[in-house]
């Protein structure tokens, strides 16, 4: 999942070399440097690719402190979606 996230980020940032610059511990806002518009496009792609729906207004920004943390959030979200919670 981490690789998938990095691939999506590379597409959003239009940077094919991004995988060499970031790791699972990279902060998505600050290390990858997504601005607010890129962030929306990133999450819309996540929703599409992972089959989930994110509550934009109440999303906890601390999940963006690392790619690993975001993966954790997405895994939990997928489980909730699958079990209809």
């Amino acid at each position, binding site marked *: 999942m981490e690789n998938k996230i990095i691939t999506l980020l590379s597409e959003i940032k239009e940077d094919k070399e991004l995988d060499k610059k970031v790791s699972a511990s990279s902060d998505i806002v600050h290390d990858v440097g997504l601005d607010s518009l890129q962030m929306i496009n990133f999450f819309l792609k996540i929703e599409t690719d992972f089959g989930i729906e994110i509550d*934009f207004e109440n999303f906890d*920004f601390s999940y963006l*402190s690392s790619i690993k943390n975001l993966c954790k959030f997405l895994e939990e979200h997928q489980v909730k979606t699958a079990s209809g919670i």
Partner: protein
Amino acid sequence: MSNCLVLGDFNSEKYWKDKKGSKLPEFVDKDSANIILSMDEMLFSFCRIDDILLTRFRFNESLKEYLIKLGYSFKSNVNNIQLTYGESNQNIFQLLNNDINRVDWVIKNITENTSIQPYSYLPCSDLFVQNLQLKSKFPNIEVIKYVNSKVFSFNLSRELGLKYSGCIVKNHSELLEYGKKMLAVSNIIIKDPFGVSGKGSISVNLDIILDRIAKYLKSQEENGYNSVFVIEELLEREIDFSCLFNIDIDGKIDIQSIQKMLNNQFAYYGSYTAKKDFVEYLEKQNYFITVENIAKKLYQEGYFGPVCLDSMILKNGDIVPIVEINARKSMGFINYSIDQHLKKFNVSGNLVSINFGYNETNKVTFDKILSEMDKQGLCFYPGLENGIMPISANTLFISHDLKIINKIESNMNAPYKGRMYISVVSKDFETRNILVKKLRELLDGLSIKVYD
């Protein structure tokens, strides 16, 4: 000689947007919002001797001392005008109308000839002028909102025969219907009527993303919000630029400058004054005739004042004169104004912004950064050909200083975001890039993490 009262808010669109208007999906980034609140310090660039600059947060003393060495001279408030975090939602005119005593010294420094020079006209600007018994005249606020809407830009483009494919949609169903038709041909961009650089517009390349946005809007419409959006074909941009002009109260048009923009996708990164050959190229393409027609139309609608017309040249060479009309001042105007000042020293600058992060434990002050820049010979001073002119101080550490509550609750270790605006004085882009690199290294040495 009459003096000017200079003040404003850089998030004008927030105050112009219909409160019952639906929004595209967005994350609320409080750090960025705070930075925008404190950008008004850059309005010093419009001040002449004896002018009065009012900033939401008091003007940094070290920055002021530095600017005085460069020949700037203005009065500024020594106390904050915004006193609580909750007041972030009020524009500066509203704050002052509520309690003019926060700047009671202003009243002593204005005369019957004092005029007002706002960044933009906002709700309550007129009341502020009345309260201070100034003679300045503003266009009607409804006119301001009307001409600043992307819907007006879109319709005017169509009227002048300048438009690529696009349409206005008034609910989520129309968004889906027209959006999908357009998506079958090319990628599209959806624009909020009052979106700004980096916010309020979304590029879409897949039906499924359009579906999700429509669903998001539908839920707002069900709660009584009204949708109005502009959908346009996503064009392949080569060069972004803007034309700065002023329309006076009698309708006289004064074209002041062409500014080229440095953008990161749709977000603003910096500005520089276009070279003579670029302006001549635009002239040959009859671009300025179109600008005059746009200005005349704005005046017919009842607008007068500053205008920053965003335009672009596409990869195929076509000029798109209206990307959006900003009937207000802009970052381009600030760069132009600084360049006008730097002319005295036979140099010019590039306005650049640098984004960075810092933690509670490694926060430094602007004074420290300025002092380090001086030690390393990075600062621009009259007589030098190259150097960096810091033009903002509060934007660096405002998020820490305002203590964003939700960040501290959710993640103690999450860094704060800051932004430094500079004018890089240099003869060429290569020297500019070297200077910016040196500043980034300096910040890095102070444990400030600079973002790309």
